[in-house]
């Protein structure tokens, strides 16, 4: 049974696209059939972060408007064969996404894949609402920073009220990914601690992604961080998050860069 997952946050720039790419790739690397869908019409970037920007021919809007078949718009990742991307269009017309059109595409994607991961645009408007509407599972990406936490709270409220599941009276599964976390600053009282954010938002923790230069490096080269450097701390955070999404019970910790232990880590990640 396919699962539709939305990666959302309200606030921009907290790591939705990075997390979509990394979680999608991590799930695909574990053998799941995954498609990542960019809902940010007009400001598409998932293709760029995934390194597929030069292979985009058709996009989500083309499929919805009937100009292209879904199979023509899907781009197969060259590194992980069970990973595909459905890009957003660069058209400025946000109304190009219709509720019925999105519903039809999601239905078709559910048949083809194990995981349909929707990268939501920032904000709480139509695009964000359409991205979350069909979701079974939501991953809320939050920075340990007041404006991000506030916006996440707002988005959690929307997930509980405006999604298809909520309207049917069902509960949508919500998880938190805390990104750009700096354990040393949190310990010194300079940054909201994980416990603070969890207490305020009261949704379960899927992972803590430490602030890391690897994240920028990954987007520079157009690869999800779980592919560009699988041993890095952020990659390990996303691998663990992907395993939790598949139902494994793992304690959440903040992964750290373990220099000098590369051999051990390499063996571990291959196994």
């Amino acid at each position, binding site marked *: 049974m396919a699962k539709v997952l939305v990666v959302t946050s309200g606030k921009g720039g907290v790591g939705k696209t990075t997390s979509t790419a990394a979680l999608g790739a991590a799930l695909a690397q574990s053998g799941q059939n995954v498609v990542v869908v960019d809902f940010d019409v007009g400001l598409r970037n998932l293709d760029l972060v995934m390194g597929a920007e030069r292979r985009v021919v058709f996009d989500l809007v083309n499929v919805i408007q009937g100009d292209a078949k879904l199979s023509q718009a899907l781009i197969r990742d060259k590194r992980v064969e069970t990973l595909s991307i459905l890009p957003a269009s660069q058209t400025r017309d946000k109304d190009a996404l219709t509720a019925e059109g999105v519903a039809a595409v999601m239905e078709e994607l559910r048949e083809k894949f194990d995981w349909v991961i929707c990268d939501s645009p920032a904000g709480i408007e139509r695009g964000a609402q359409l991205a979350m509407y069909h979701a079974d599972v939501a991953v809320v990406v939050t920075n340990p920073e*007041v404006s991000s936490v506030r916006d996440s709270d707002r988005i959690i409220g929307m997930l509980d009220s405006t999604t298809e599941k909520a309207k049917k009276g069902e509960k949508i599964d919500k998880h938190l990914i805390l990104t750009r976390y700096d354990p040393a600053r949190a310990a010194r*009282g300079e*940054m909201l601690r994980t416990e*603070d954010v969890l207490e*305020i938002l009261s949704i379960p923790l899927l992972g803590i992604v430490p602030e890391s230069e690897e994240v920028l490096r990954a987007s520079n080269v157009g690869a999800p961080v779980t592919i560009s450097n699988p041993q890095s701390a952020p990659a390990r955070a996303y691998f663990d998050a992907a395993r939790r999404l598949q139902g494994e019970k793992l304690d959440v910790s903040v992964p750290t860069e373990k220099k000098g232990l590369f051999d051990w880590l390499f063996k571990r990640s291959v196994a």
Partner: protein
Amino acid sequence: MSFLANLFAKRNSAPVARDRLQILLAHERSAGEGHSDLLAKLHQEILEVIARHVAVDQDKVQVKLDRGSGCSLLEIDVEVPQLGSAKSRDADKRDA
């Protein structure tokens, strides 16, 4: 010692962030359940009552709101033009 205390106080901004968020979100969450415009409604109705008796210049109405964890203070400051004499002020404070 006070230098050290200052340094320490400066460092510990995270608890301040947590407390501010908790108060703010408590208000924003209850906003979804119909209380949303209680303060806005109070503001509007109080002004309507005053306007029944005196001409109220909207530019001369100051509204201040301080949302706390236990109670909020809505302060409406209306400048009422007086009968010929110098302007006097009429302050109206309400707890909500």
